[in-house]
Each structure stands twice: as structure tokens, then as C-alpha cells.
């Protein structure tokens, strides 16, 4: 990690200060991904005894599982909604199991919501966290209109279920439109990217 970036512990501390059912925009740098994962899953969710529903549209759930394993993070309460493995034709597809639910394509945003809903209902835990990784990847496959509508419905629904939502965005790939879209539905913003000059 480069010295000017926010640490995993700082991310977890900031998240801990947000009230339940908050929606948080977490903007990170591509260089800070591992710290973000550690901060969100290990130091925040696991410590608070939460079930995590991790929506992955950037890299496959298998790859994230390997990252969690490498970081020695307990992933027993992490459930993946994997929107990317199915469309990676030829790549080794993730197995659909108790911890992984596949969505055919990141364009099927309604199905993504339905899988999140299913996992929320299945969860026995009082505390739940939904992580969207990332809005930039979803924006590759969907236009801003439908993505904005999706975020609004998803976040409102999760709020009513008293679940935390964290929307990850990558600052190097973000646009003002995407930032506005995320800010519209989020209550808090955490900047885990490169420090801005001045």
C-alpha cells in the first residue's frame, strides 16, 4: 500500500460509525483493493457478526475467494452473487453452491436484485451487508438510466430490510455521471483512493 492511502482499519472505523441500514459509497483506487476488502469484510463485517452478500461484477467469485484465502480472512459468512463467471465463456466457471449464486449476465439487473433478495431471506443473521463490486463494472454493461434505476430500487429495498449497502467504485474509472448516481442513493461517502492534492 502506498503511504498516502487510507488503511483497512480506517475504512472499518469509518464504516462502524455509520448507523444500521446505511448506504455507503466507497471510492477506492485500484491499488487499494486489498485493503478495502480487508477493511470491509474482515475488520467490519466479520467483527460485527454480519452475513455478507458480495455482488461481484468485476472479477469472478472464485478469484475473490482466493484473495480472501490469501489474506487469511474468514469467508464462511460471505455469499456471492457472481455476475461475471457465466459470461466468461471458456473460463473455468464458478460452481453454483451454497455460497455462490450465478447470474447469467451483468445486464440482468433484475435477476441480480432477485438473487440478493433470495440470500437476504435465506440469511439467519440479524445483521447483513451487501457489497456491490463495482458500479464501474456494472456501468460497462448497462446504461446510466437503467443503472440509476437499479441502484435506487436495490438500495431502498435493502434499507427497508435494515441491511448495510456498500457500493464500491474505482476512482480511476469513474465518471461524474457515475459518481452522481452513487451519491444520490448513498448516505455516506468514504474515499479510500489517492489523496487529492491541495
Amino acid at each position, binding site marked *: 500500500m502506498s503511504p498516502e492511502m487510507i488503511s483497512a482499519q480506517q475504512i472499518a472505523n469509518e464504516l462502524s460509525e455509520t448507523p444500521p441500514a446505511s448506504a455507503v459509497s466507497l471510492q477506492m483506487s485500484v491499488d487499494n483493493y486489498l485493503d478495502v476488502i480487508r477493511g470491509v469484510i474482515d475488520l467490519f463485517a466479520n467483527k460485527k457478526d454480519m452475513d455478507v452478500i458480495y455482488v461481484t461484477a468485476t472479477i469472478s467469485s472464485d478469484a475473490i475467494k482466493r484473495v480472501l484465502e490469501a489474506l487469511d480472512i474468514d469467508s464462511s459468512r460471505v455469499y456471492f452473487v457472481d455476475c461475471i463467471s457465466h459470461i466468461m465463456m471458456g473460463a473455468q466457471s464458478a460452481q453454483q453452491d451454497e455460497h455462490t449464486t450465478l447470474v447469467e449476465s451483468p445486464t440482468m439487473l433484475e435477476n441480480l436484485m*432477485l438473487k440478493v433478495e433470495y440470500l437476504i431471506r435465506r440469511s439467519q443473521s440479524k445483521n447483513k451487508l451487501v457489497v456491490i463490486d463495482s458500479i464501474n463494472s456494472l456501468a460497462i454493461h448497462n446504461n446510466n438510466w437503467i443503472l440509476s434505476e437499479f441502484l435506487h430500487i436495490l438500495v431502498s*429495498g435493502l434499507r427497508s430490510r435494515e441491511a448495510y449497502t456498500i457500493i464500491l467504485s474505482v476512482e480511476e474509472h469513474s465518471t461524474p455521471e457515475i459518481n452522481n448516481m452513487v451519491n444520490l442513493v448513498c448516505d455516506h461517502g468514504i474515499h479510500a483512493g489517492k489523496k487529492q492534492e491541495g
Partner: protein
Amino acid sequence: MESLEASVDEMVVPSLFCNRKETIISGSRHSQESMVQKSGERERCATGLEGLDTILYGGIPRANTILLTGSCGTGKTSLALEFLIHGAIKGENSLFISVTENSEKLLQNIMPYKFFDKNLIKSGRLVFVDLPIMYERLGMTKAELSMEEIDLLAAAISDLAAELGTKRLVIDSITSVCYKLKTSEKIRDFILKLGKALSDLNCTSILVGEVPADSTAYSSFGVEEAIADGIILMANMERRGDLLRTLQVIKMRGTMHSRAKYVLDLTPMGVLLVPLLKGGSTG
């Protein structure tokens, strides 16, 4: 442009919002229960499918006969079965009349539901009957039924429902029954008689209809849709190469309802619904 009714109704968002039991109308929130009281008055048969009950402002008006229609693979049978299972769990005797598929095979399909309990069948709360066996016992072996046989069939089904104390009934599918009736007059006569008899028993019924995938009609014979108190349309919708299962309530006598289109998923927790995203589309 869609009607005002549709645009207001579309604000009812089921599923993810359901636990809140709130409906957003013109910026203010009302509980689902108060909406039901306001809208009137008819006792509801809550389907048990949260999303659908939200769309219907609390459920199907009790004793209504509903046409649940759509092409193959849209989830009609699953939805109808879930309606019966939830009824049986609530203590309402439920009857599934299977026309096309035998009950044993159907039972295999309902086992994955997390809320399904085999004791519902053992206790008689949930009963499966194969219509071909009824045809045989009633001596209805011809390809086309006469008017007398139609009366006999409607009476046999309503007698069975009365005997079992049935409060929820599904016929899957009414289209297959209609093939034995042939003419519009006979179909109208059969559905009217059966619907009246079941309504008198305070039984809420779902008639499952089948239409071809490319059909714009709600029923194969064009009669069923006119007689039913409500129409729930299930479909496969293609969007940019993705095939989505959708549900839309076209009509429902005795209640306000959303007319928007919803996307559904069949899960071990039952049918889940979310609003279809429009993405700024004007089409």
C-alpha cells in the same frame, strides 16, 4: 402514455419492500392494511407470495376465479402450487386438479420449497387429484364432452371441493379441459358454472391457462379471459438477448392493483418479484 392508474400503481414495489408493508402513493406512505380497508372491503385471500400480495393490495378478493395465463416455462404451475401450499399452511384446505401432468411428478417438483411440509398432504390440507381419473370414473371417454357431461363435470368438481372443504383450488390447465369442450359456448358454460359453484363455496380459484409464446391473447379460446374475475399474465421477455420471466396483473375485479410488469425468480423460498427496470425507456 400510460394511464394515471398505472403510473400510480407502478410505485408499489414488492419483494424487497415487502417486509415494510408500505405502499408509496403520491409521496405519502400508508400501511398495506389501511390500503385494503380503503380500497374496500372485500375479504382477501392472501396468496402468501409477498410480492403478488403487494401488487394486489393484500391478495386476491376471496371467492374470485383467476386466470393465470402464459406460455410454457414461465412459472405458472410453480406459482399456483405455492398459492395452495401457503393456503394449506394457513389452515385452508387446498385442492390441485392436475390435467396434464400426474400428481406424483408434480410432488417431486414442490419438494425443494423450504416451506413445504409433506404433512400438509398427509393431513389432507393439500389434496392432488388427476382429472383424467375423474373423466374415467365419470365415463367421459369421448374426445368431446356433451352439454350434459359439462354440467356433470362442473358439478363433480364443485362437489369434490365442497366435500373437502376447499378454500383454494387450482386447475392446471383449464386449456387442456377446454380442448375437450371444443366450442366457445361450451367453454363459457363450463367456466361460468364452475366459477359460480366455487364462489358459492367461498373458494378462491386459479385456472391455469396456456397460450403460445407469440400470442397477444390471454387465452387459447378467447373465452376464459372474459369470464375470469382476474387475469395474471406470465411471460418470457427478451431484452438485449436476456430472457426474463415476467408477471403482470391485467385485471382483478374487486380490488385496486398494480398494472406494472415485474420480473420473477423461482427459488426454494418461493416466487420472488422485483419491478422490471425501464431504464428511461419510453417504449
